[in-house]
């Protein structure tokens, strides 16, 4: 399921981009462990994937509130549905 979890950050960023525009990428850049390449629409993770995703979700929520947390959840619900529960980041449960 490593491949599935690695799809989550980009899916979240792209969904946030629909709401807040390029700011979604700027905020993602501030998350430790997440390297963002906006020109190629890609990100890479270094460290604990679950922690990085939790930090990304928290980054948006800190600035834009609970609604942004829901957007993150909705954006990846199909990926999360196929992952074993123990591998799902707590922010997306």
């Amino acid at each position, binding site marked *: 399921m490593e491949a599935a979890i690695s799809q989550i950050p980009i899916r979240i960023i792209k969904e946030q981009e629909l709401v807040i525009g390029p700011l979604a990428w700027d905020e993602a850049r501030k998350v430790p462990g997440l390297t963002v390449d906006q020109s190629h629409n890609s990100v890479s993770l270094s460290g604990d994937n679950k922690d990085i995703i939790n930090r990304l979700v928290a980054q948006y929520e800190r600035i834009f509130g609970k609604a*942004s947390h829901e957007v993150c959840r909705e954006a990846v619900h199909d990926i999360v549905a196929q992952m074993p529960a123990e591998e799902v980041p707590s922010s997306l449960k």
Partner: protein
Amino acid sequence: MANNDTPISSEEDKKVREELYKQNLELARLYKQVDTLNKQRESLVHLINHKVKGSFTRTKFLFAGMLDGTFGEISSEIRKRAQQGLDFDNGGIQTVDLVLNVANLQNGLIRYDMKNIDLKEILFKTIEEEKPELNAKGLKLEINIADDKYNLTGDAVWLKEAMHNLISNSVKYTKEGKIIIGLEKSAGKILFSVKDTGLGITDEDKQNLFTEGGRGKNSVKVNVDSTGYGLYTVKMIVEAHKGKVWAESGGPGKGAQFYIELPIV
């Protein structure tokens, strides 16, 4: 409450940010819905083009074959029915083409061939094409065109389509009386008009006249084949030429007047 002199607190700043996010989210959701509907619509147009028009075209050639003797001798009764079938198919193809034209105009797939054209010449050609239907209904035709040059920059094919649409509409919705077609020039503009002694337009129907799929309640009673796309097509064509189209009527039973105003560019 913050004003221009007092900096807003971080709490207020957070509230504003969260509220803006929610508004943007609502817009993003609406955008997604519109995007989905547009894709469904494109898919429907594709279906109409390939399946519905294809079916009409195939049966059209069957009926045409029956009429021209391809399938051998046929009785006069069969000939009559084949001619009806051919007419129905032609009507169906025209309707499909109208809907497809609207879709293509909306998607920007129509490229206007803007040239210096003589609108009067185009109008006369259009009138000639309308005469059989006009004569069949026994309607009188009056043409009021002041002696002048009616040149402008435009697409001859699409402006002809727009004028044809308005004249044809007047003929359809006029049971008896006359159709008056006019062309005049003033202050850098050309005004084309069609006036009839027909059904007229209610105030309620006026609101829907030039909208997509907008059919008047009374018009449907007279013209069951009304698609509601004709006048919408006219509006798109005229606006692409930076012109205006509008309708006037004294009310039901009092006839209608349609106008197209085009700038002389």
